[in-house]
């Protein structure tokens, strides 16, 4: 049983290294939650998810204490008719990125537990198909600030 201790240490270390590696290949940029008019209890969160790893990843779940139900959604534009649908996952290909943006993929927050104000930070947990998670705090922004302004 001489080898047991070093073996365990090695295993633990590699597990730590492995999880650290899994965390570092996926990253989230510029997340935000859209500020909605007072009284409206559904909103969306948008962000850019980057995958610097060699494996394709899937965002399989999102969760937040700010809403009763949190779902992954997308939009289909069929001849100008916009259809919002829940999706089982959102793919982020290896060495690529997926943008969650208005009119496309988004994290849908249904039945907000409390009204959101501009500047609030909404905690959101993203879970991927490899079991890794990313915690983020998405600021609440007015729709105006979330879109580039035109040149005047």
């Amino acid at each position: 049983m001489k080898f047991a201790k070093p073996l365990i240490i090695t295993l633990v270390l590699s597990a730590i290294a492995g999880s650290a590696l899994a965390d570092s290949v996926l990253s989230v940029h510029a997340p935000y939650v859209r500020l909605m008019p007072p009284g409206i209890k559904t909103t969306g969160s948008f962000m850019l998810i980057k995958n610097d790893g060699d494996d394709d990843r899937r965002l399989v779940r999102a969760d937040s204490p700010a809403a009763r139900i949190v779902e992954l959604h997308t939009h289909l534009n069929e001849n100008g008719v916009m259809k919002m649908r829940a999706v089982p996952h959102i793919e982020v290909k290896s060495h690529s990125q997926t943008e969650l943006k208005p009119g496309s993929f988004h994290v849908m927050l249904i039945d907000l537990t409390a009204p959101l104000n501009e500047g609030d930070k909404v905690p959101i947990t993203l879970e991927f198909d490899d079991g890794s998670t990313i915690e983020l705090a998405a600021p609440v922004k007015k729709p105006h600030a979330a879109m580039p302004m035109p040149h005047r």
Partner: protein
Amino acid sequence: MSRQRYWIAAGICLSMLLVWLAFFWEPDIGTPTGHPGPGTLRPAGQPMGGDFTLDSPDGKLALQDYRGKVVLLYFGYTFCPDVCPTSLSALGQAFTALTPEELAQVQGVFVSVDPERDTQEVLSVYAPFFHPRIVGATGTPARVAEVARRYGVSYMKQKPVDDRPYTVDHSSFTYLIDREGRLAALLPHGAPVADIVLQIRRLLGDKGKPS
């Protein structure tokens, strides 16, 4: 025997094709006249536009009351988590980009196709949030349907999943109405703010140009 099977199979294929043709085939009816941008409408009828009267938080809203102004009309619902806010924000941003003189000659109207949930109280807060110059309006389901039909708007309430609030699929065009109340142009969903400003200024003509 196998020959008989072949004919049965062929018959089934043919009847399936006929069913598909009858129920699902929607030939492209082309772009409506006067349509400046990309995007086509579902065949809910060619949009004719025209006057209508609906209820707004300030009382009756009649399109004819806006004669002399350029009206931007959008159909949606307030539970709409993404599409409507995106379109209405773009509209609000376009309004913000106008000069005060131009803005005085422009009106935004948000028509809710979900009168069941979108009461006047809800609309009174919702529409002006995007810009004070946008007013909410709705009416009885029958009247909303009539206005929508005239503008070629399709919408369909979706079955709710479990205890989630239901969503409504709907056309996401912005309708531009000129000073004489005529439907002048359609802007597709996601039209850049600069395009909306351009279209408004085009309809305002020389009178709207800043001096």
